[in-house]
């Protein structure tokens, strides 16, 4: 069957399943609406968290970033950063927030710091981080749809916006947890099946995690040795050792992503849905198991795809692919504008090299790698169709989770919590839908002019979450003496420093022309890139919070009792509204 038709069928079937589940499991009350009734099994919740967590950035973008622009070893920052945060979450946040038993993160901050100001600041930080994150998703959705519909990136993005809007506003809010379980299954199959095929083909070992450490069927050299040899011949840095910037940059980048993971509200609220404190701890472990399946496969996908691409363009050293004989996937991706060839020396051959003057592959967008991977390896059409469905599942499940977090912050925390406490349940839900609509439009608009690759944009969101929300929650649990003034000053200075640093290099609200210092290495503070600055922001947050706290009054008795209450695991009630 033709690829296009097959893709439509597979994508159509998976979408029908999601919508079917969403209707079957729709929420009957606000409690079901916000925390899925609080009765989700830890393994099921782990799987849903996995889908919620693994976005377009993980699925579409990450392997491409590892394989290409982060040149192999440098990509470890994503692999470590986006998994290690779960350890922080399981030990430092999830169990206590589950015990606290409310619906949203700003609710915790508002109660713990006995102040609406703290709550509003938390809402603002949450929105900044989540909106940046949604932009990253939009980039991924645009790439997936442009390939799937065989059109330009802009048209693909527009189609994606419409679908996300319909999905999240009408169907996605209801039964989001159960839909995400289905989405997890789709995305994990879509990711691992091509990897297994490719690993088998290259190394004879069906497990990609082992395949990357094995020898090639073709000439018996180790995959990684071969890769090092091929890339260095073309003038690129060695695959297994090239770092991303300095060692300090790698260190800080990884730390930012870890702390950010633990501070992202759409992940934190997932742990409000399990029945007990014990389950919250276990659920974080299960979530990481499901995430690790993809994350340990990704380096194999990255390495093997890079090797396959290189050997397609240059089958043997000095013997280049003729442009007229380029394979179908090459043409398909040229249509999207994400892959560009320019015949600089007019010989009709494709020369790919690290030297900008002679390199003729003028554009290889990192975000196409995973989607193009099965085509490059000439896998059967149904595998290619499955990958398209998987990419969309990843992008949609995360976009839905984020939109839920943003709209609940606006409708539940701001509108009902502060501005109009007497608002009816129905009006609250409507307000939340309107907020979602605006968010999709804003994110789509910024998606037309994305500041970075999907994973890069998402990394900025982590920096914002790391520098504001994580320290405030953690201090609230582990430091009883922390008070309103300290927490508010900490959050504002942490996110302020991070935003200032990002904007000065990337432009205000990511509009490039407004950046007042170019996004270039020599301008970076200690060589730390903007994506990695969240950890520095978090340190600023902690320091300022402590300093301000020391010179202001200690929190009242009832707040200190609240801290004792969340520290003790027993007697956790259901998650409630107020």
């Amino acid at each position, binding site marked *: 069957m033709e690829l296009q038709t097959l893709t439509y069928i597979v994508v159509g079937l998976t979408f029908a399943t999601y919508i079917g589940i969403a209707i079957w499991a729709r929420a009957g009350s606000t409690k079901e609406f916000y925390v899925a009734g609080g009765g989700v099994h830890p393994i099921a919740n782990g799987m849903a968290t996995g889908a919620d967590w693994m976005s377009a950035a993980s699925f579409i973008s990450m392997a491409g970033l590892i394989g290409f622009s982060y040149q192999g*070893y440098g*990509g*470890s920052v994503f*692999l*470590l950063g986006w*998994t*290690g945060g*779960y*350890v*922080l979450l*399981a*030990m*430092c946040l999830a*169990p206590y927030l589950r015990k606290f038993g409310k619906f949203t993160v700003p609710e915790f901050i508002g109660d713990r710091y006995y102040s609406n100001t703290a709550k509003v600041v938390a809402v603002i930080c949450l929105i900044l981080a989540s909106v940046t994150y949604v932009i990253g998703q939009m980039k991924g959705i645009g790439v997936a749809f442009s390939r799937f519909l065989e059109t330009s990136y802009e048209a693909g993005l527009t189609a994606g916006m419409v679908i996300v809007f319909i999905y999240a506003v009408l169907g996605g809010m209801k039964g989001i947890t159960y839909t995400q379980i289905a989405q997890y299954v789709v995305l994990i199959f879509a990711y691992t099946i091509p990897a297994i095929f490719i690993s088998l083909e290259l190394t004879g070992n069906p497990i990609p*995690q*082992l395949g*990357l*450490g*094995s*020898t090639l069927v073709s000439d018996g050299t*180790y*995959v*990684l*040795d071969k890769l090092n040899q091929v890339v260095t011949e073309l003038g690129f840095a060695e695959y*297994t*050792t090239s770092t991303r910037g300095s*060692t300090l940059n*790698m*260190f800080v980048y*990884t*730390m930012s992503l870890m702390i950010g993971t633990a501070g992202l509200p759409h992940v934190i609220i997932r742990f409000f849905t399990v029945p*007990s*404190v*014990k389950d919250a*701890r*276990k659920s*974080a*472990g299960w979530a*990481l*198991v499901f995430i*690790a399946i993809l*994350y*340990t496969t990704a*380096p194999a996908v990255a390495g093997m795809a890079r090797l396959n691409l290189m050997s397609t363009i240059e089958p043997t050293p000095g013997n280049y692919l003729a442009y007229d004989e380029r394979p179908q996937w090459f043409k398909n991706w040229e249509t999207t504008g994400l892959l560009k060839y320019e015949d600089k020396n007019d010989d009709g051959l494709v020369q790919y090299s690290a030297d900008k003057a002679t390199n003729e592959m003028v554009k290889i967008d990192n975000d196409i790698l995973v989607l193009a991977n099965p085509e490059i390896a000439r896998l059967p059409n149904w595998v290619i169709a499955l990958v398209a469905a998987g990419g969309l599942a990843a992008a949609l499940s995360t976009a839905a989770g984020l939109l839920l977090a943003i709209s609940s912050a606006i409708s539940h925390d701001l509108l009902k919590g502060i501005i109009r406490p007497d608002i009816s349940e129905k009006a609250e839900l409507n307000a939340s839908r309107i907020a979602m609509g605006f968010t999709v439009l804003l994110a789509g608009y910024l998606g037309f002019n994305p500041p970075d690759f999907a994973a890069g944009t998402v990394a900025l969101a982590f920096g914002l979450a790391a520098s504001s929300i994580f320290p405030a929650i953690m201090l609230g649990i*582990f430091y009883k003496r922390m008070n309103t003034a300290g927490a508010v000053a900490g959050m504002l200075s942490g996110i302020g420093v991070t935003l200032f640093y990002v904007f000065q290099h990337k432009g205000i609200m990511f509009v490039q022309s407004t950046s007042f210092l170019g996004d270039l290495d020599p301008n970076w503070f200690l060589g730390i890139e903007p994506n990695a600055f969240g950890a520095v922001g978090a340190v600023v947050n902690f320091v300022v919070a402590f300093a301000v706290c020391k010179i202001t009054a200690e929190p009242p008795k009832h707040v200190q009792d609240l801290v*004792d209450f969340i*520290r*003790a*695991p*027993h*007697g*956790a009630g259901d998650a409630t509204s107020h």
Partner: protein
Amino acid sequence: MKNNAEAYWKANVSLIVKLLIIWFVVPFLGGIVFVDTLNQISLGGYPLGFWIAQQGSIYMFVVLIFYYAKKMSDLDDQFSNGGE
């Protein structure tokens, strides 16, 4: 009752500190700071440092969380002070 709760919290915090030291040392020192040294050793076709950064640490994170969940579960029973 109060002392009980305090002892429980102390035990929790000391467990967290121990586990977070491992959480820090393996990826940040093994996978980043001393990666070049560890790369001298190979694990099949993987240089060891590279393997820690792209595979090993992730497996370790999973083990750490389940170990913590198990230990805390024991602590919960040991300090069981009413409730469920």
